[in-house]
């Protein structure tokens, strides 16, 4: 008699029936064996949650006890919502940082929707439909290379994206101004260069230039940490700031003539005094 090869679905049903039978015969009752493990773990979870709440309260207790003091776990609340702010840096909750950083990766305007809805939707579809396209019966890790590699890559990329999202910052006026004292110390700037340093921090220069590690490199703008060593001279600096394209042909840098002569002079003094870290 020719043996008919059983259909895969019948094989699976038979295997599952065998599994059920085996568990019934040789398994242990959920209570108290597995229940004990679950209870211990739940205790750990509740303790961690309570512990974090307590630490949050203690470390955010500033001298004013007004909740706005920054601590190890952040403040208990920030300032009240101000829809008209020009100095706040929005960030989502930490578990959304990987999506947040994804948006900073898709910088080309036509690709924005990929970062906002494209990639997350595709990832979600892959995740939901997983058991529908992974139909192999094999469960041992050593024989599931695609699954293991996929898992490792996913975890690593989400970890990296989350960390990058946590450390991302834009060099904008409201934040860079806090770096000025460090600049003065590290570059040993003279007193007359300080007003220019402050102007440099708030005028948006760090949106395209880097200076002592602050700022970002955009549109080919050079690092200005040691711009003074090129000895370009105060006059050159002022002319360049007023109309960069007339001095450096093809430069995409905007014109800063509106700052006025005095402020342009301050900026030029600062730039010429920046001879690098000393």
């Amino acid at each position, binding site marked *: 008699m020719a043996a008919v090869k059983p259909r895969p679905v019948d094989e699976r049903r038979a295997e599952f029936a065998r599994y059920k039978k085996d568990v019934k015969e040789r398994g242990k009752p959920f209570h108290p064996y597995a229940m004990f493990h679950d209870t211990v773990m739940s205790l750990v979870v509740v303790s961690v949650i309570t512990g974090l709440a307590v630490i949050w309260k203690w470390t955010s207790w500033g001298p004013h006890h007004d909740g706005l003091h920054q601590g190890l776990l952040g403040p208990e609340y920030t300032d009240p919502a101000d829809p008209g702010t*020009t100095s706040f840096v929005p960030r989502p909750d930490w578990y959304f940082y990987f999506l947040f950083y994804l948006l900073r990766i898709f910088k080309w*305007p036509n690709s*924005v929707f990929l970062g906002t809805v494209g990639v997350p939707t595709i990832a979600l579809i892959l995740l939901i439909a997983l058991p529908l396209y992974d139909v192999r019966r094999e469960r041992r890790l050593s024989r599931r290379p695609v699954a293991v590699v996929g898992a490792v890559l996913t975890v690593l990329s989400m970890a990296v994206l989350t960390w990058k999202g946590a450390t991302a910052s834009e060099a904008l006026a409201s934040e860079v101004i806090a770096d000025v004292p460090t600049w003065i110390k590290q570059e040993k700037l003279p007193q007359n260069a300080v007003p220019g340093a402050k102007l440099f921090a708030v005028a948006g220069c760090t949106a395209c230039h880097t200076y002592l590690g602050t700022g970002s490199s955009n549109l080919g703008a050079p690092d200005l940490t040691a711009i003074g060593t090129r000895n370009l001279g105060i006059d050159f600096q002022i002319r360049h700031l007023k109309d960069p394209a007339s001095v450096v042909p093809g430069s995409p840098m905007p014109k800063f003539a509106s700052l006025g002569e005095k402020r342009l002079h301050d900026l030029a003094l600062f730039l010429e005094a920046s001879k690098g870290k000393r």
Partner: protein
Amino acid sequence: MSEQEPLPEPHLPPPTLWPIGFAVGIAVLLVGLIINPLWIATIGGAIALVFGLLWARDATADLRGRAIHVEPERAELRPAGTAEIGPPVTPHPEPGERFPRSKFLEGVTLGLGGVIGGIVTVPIAGFAVLPGFLHQKRHQVDLGPVGDFTEGQWYIATFMLDPSEGDVSRRTAFVRNNGSVQAKGGQVPSFTIISNRCAHLGCPVQANGPTGAILGMKDVIEKTKNGKVTLSPTLPAGFGCPCHGGQYDTEGNRTAGPPVRALDRYDFSIKNGHVLLLSTYSVAKVEGTGAQAKIHKYKLVGPGEHVDGIEQVFYPLNPPHH
């Protein structure tokens, strides 16, 4: 089968309705004690007494030897299997009859169920969804006298769109008085009024320039019918967004980063010497600067939406904005 001892006869009280009257009497007595102890309580007590005596007379009837007829607790049980099977209640459909009664009942039940479901769900769903789309308010903001705006000077203007809503309606715009420009009818004032909501995802855009203490110029604070309006002078060389690195020039055009178009602008008018902000509109790009700027205007759309180019096919239909 062994002989079973007959169970002793249970003592059953005879059926009687007098307790009802007794209860009514007690209730009237108690109410009367509160309202009118003299009359109502007395009446209540009398009723209770009369009915109580009648009840006691009934209850003790068998002790006094009177025969009591008590209905048995349970009717005689018929032995199983003696039920008669009569003709079916719903007869089989006649030949040619396509909708027997059971199918009709089924259909009507489901249909009525659907109607009930609809009556409950549709208004609720409508209430959840529609109010967000209908009756959107127009706003008109009084920014203060034109004289507050020195020509050529940028101001960061903070105002409230709707004072009755409070702080949640506070907005910021970058305002510059461009002087006047020749247009049909003579000289008309020209203002550049740029919204500070980034065109990428709506983050609050900052001015790339000195303000406040570093600039050394004082804020102007006005109180208009829109509440407090603050004008902070600034000297921006452009605008930048803190979220994902969008950069704009002084006309609001995108120069770097993910924003998909230029910054939105406000329409304005001058009424009684005051600058009034009217509705917001979206801008694809701006050519030229200041009073001579050519603004490619579009209806207001949300952040991240393209208004021109081939990508606008992704956003064919927008909810109504004002």
